[in-house]
């Protein structure tokens, strides 16, 4: 497992006159095995932050340390499933596993089983519903046996019932494995239900506040305490002009 240290990260896209500041200055930390959500208004750099942590993009300034600083295996679940349409479900998982062989196959099937999809291993992605494809995406991220799981609004494109089912499943998996999870969302209720702490970002890419959620796991979305906390957190944004209110996906 791995802790994360984000120190003074800044990200600027473009050069010269065409510069856009995606992240002004973000610092926070995630403890080993902790479930932390990042919420914030559209365009506050949530996805960019995950890309920097995963190493897909480089920070303009500041640094990110994952684990003890050596190579750490990261699992990534995106907003969309991002499966290779021309590979079967099982091969999509094998695609991201290091090395090859029987062990990988067994492992891929095991994690497909964990999300309840061992029966569709030989199917093509476009034969599955959106919810099933997203579960394959989750199985793929878990199958690399990551020390850190990054999730970028993984349930935002799903219908309410499927999203709810998957949230429950994610919570069970997290409790069973003790993974470190960094979860980006614009859904405060979702963040309250799942997280140990919520990092609230402000427009422009700064940390507005960090809120601990002190309720025991697992939590149900129907739990009145979850609802009360959500209402309380939403209340904190009443001072923010409406266009800056939390919401939107991009």
């Amino acid at each position, binding site marked *: 497992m791995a802790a994360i240290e984000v120190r003074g990260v800044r990200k600027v896209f473009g050069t010269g006159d065409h510069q856009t500041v995606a992240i002004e200055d973000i610092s926070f930390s995630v403890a080993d095995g902790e479930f932390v959500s990042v919420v914030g208004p559209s365009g506050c750099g949530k996805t960019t932050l995950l890309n920097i942590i*995963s190493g897909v993009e480089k920070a303009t300034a500041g640094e990110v340390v994952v684990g003890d600083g050596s190579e750490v295996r990261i699992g990534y679940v995106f907003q969309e499933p991002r499966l290779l349409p021309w590979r079967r479900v099982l091969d999509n998982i094998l695609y991201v596993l290091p090395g090859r062989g029987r062990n990988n196959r067994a492992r891929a099937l095991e994690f497909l089983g964990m999300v309840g999809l061992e029966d569709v291993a030989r199917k*093509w992605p476009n034969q599955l519903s959106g919810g099933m494809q997203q579960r394959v995406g989750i199985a793929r991220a878990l199958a690399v046996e990551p020390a850190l799981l990054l999730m970028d609004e993984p349930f935002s494109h799903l219908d309410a019932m499927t999203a709810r089912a998957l949230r429950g*499943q994610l919570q069970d998996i997290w409790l069973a494995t003790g993974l470190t999870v960094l979860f980006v969302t614009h859904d405060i209720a979702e963040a309250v239900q799942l997280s140990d702490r919520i990092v609230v970002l402000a427009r422009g890419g700064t940390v507005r506040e960090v809120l601990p959620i002190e309720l025991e796991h697992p939590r149900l979305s129907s739990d009145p305490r979850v609802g009360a906390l959500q209402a309380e957190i939403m209340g904190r944004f009443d001072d923010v002009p409406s266009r800056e209110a939390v919401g939107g996906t991009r």
Partner: protein
Amino acid sequence: MTGDVIVSGAARAQRVWHRAWRILAHHRAARVGSWLLVPAVWVAISAAVPRIAGPVPVAEAFWEELTSGELYWQFGISLRRFLVGMAIGIGLGLVVGIALGIWRVFDLLLSGPAIAALAIPSIIWALLATMWFGFGDTAPIFTVAVSALPFVGVNVTTGIQAMPRDLTRMSAAFGVPAWRRLTRLLVPAVTGYLFAGTRLAMIVGWQALLLSEWFGAVDGVGFRARYWYDANRPEGTLAWIVLFIVFVVLLDRVLLERISRWVFRWRAQESTQPAPVQEA
């Protein structure tokens, strides 16, 4: 009694007519019809215009070429030139297409000339190649290769530039090794474009071959068609042209379409299952 017979007779006639119409209107019938249409028009035109050889003399000329062994021999020569030329054209097209697609410098440098190359008719290449290389294998092979190359190249470039960025980012996030990304992401993503390009390239390449052999060869399908032309025997020329057309159609419809159906089998089935609902 008689009334019943008449009614049932009329009903039967109607049933027969309905069934016949169902068969005629079926899309398979339309497809068969499209194959019968061409010979039918041919027979009609040859009956009206004596200088145009009809199917029967053409079939006789074809039989003559077949029994004398010319057909097998000349077609084999052309096929070999075609395959070698296409292999070179597709190979170079892939290399050029990938370079253009990946490095912007090449794109800026070569995309203009590539479009120009697409606009050069095969006949120009055939004439130039004959002047440069003389009679023999080199001119037809060169003509096939240069005619095919830009079609493959331009399509592969487009394919690479249209690569789904989401999937490249996903691969980067999971640290998928470069070789695996090339074989399982880049190549399959480009395959559709490569296919479209190769299909066009094959048709254009085969035409180029015929032209090149017509002008600059002493053997091959094109040369043989020219031989009959010079002998003022249109049925012989037509026999070779028919063979030429049948080959292109078979190549496209049977071989390429089958390969394409297999390669794109993942597109065939669409999602029919509703989203599963499981209570958390």
